[in-house]
């Protein structure tokens, strides 16, 4: 897994909280910085793809590991 600048553990949270928390964490970050998000909501896979397309923040990686979903998002 690539390096990241900040981490957000959204485990146990359901829609739309992982997206809302991610947005909140990304806001003060600088362009080019990378946020690592951990989630357990299976819906978050499609949601982070859609979030990335609509906000322009690049989804660099999306994978499942040990029942958890991991996302790397680069702030635009």
């Amino acid at each position, binding site marked *: 897994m690539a390096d990241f600048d900040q981490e957000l553990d959204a485990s146990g*949270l359901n829609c*739309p909280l992982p*997206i*809302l928390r*991610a947005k909140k964490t990304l806001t003060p970050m600088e362009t080019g910085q990378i946020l690592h998000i951990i989630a357990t909501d299976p819906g978050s896979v499609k949601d982070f793809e859609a979030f990335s397309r609509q906000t322009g923040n690049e989804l660099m990686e999306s994978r499942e590991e040990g029942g958890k979903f991991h996302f790397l998002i680069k702030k635009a």
Partner: protein
Amino acid sequence: MQEKKLAIIATKGSLDWAYPPFILASTASALGYDTEIFFTFYGLQLLKKNLSLEVTPLGNPGMPMPMNMDKWFPVMLTALPGMQSMMTTMMKKKMADKGVASLEELRELCQEAEVRLIACQMTVDLFDMNPGDFIDGIEYAGAARFFEFAGESDICLYI
């Protein structure tokens, strides 16, 4: 890219129906939408400082109930005293167990994200509601005010 706009009318005052306006509005703001919710009639309950919203199985054959009660429990008995508060307690517990946000939290997130919350002045007068019972930071206005924004919106929802 020009900012998209979402306009929502919230008309329902039950625990279950309180979720869609706040979920959609908070998510839309996270996606960069400029968002407004116009609360009218029973929807005004969603602006109260102390939310005491309930769910009812009455008149709702689609509501899943514990122990498959929706399949065999006589509809008339769902009107018994205490049923509504029992269903509400169970629903709240289920939501907490599943990591669903509380309404207070979603509403706060909406306000932080600068979603504009507008209370229908006519309804406030009609039901003699006390503005002191409502949360701070809301606007009181009428239908024309809603259309000013809704007319320019990309998405307009009636909930």
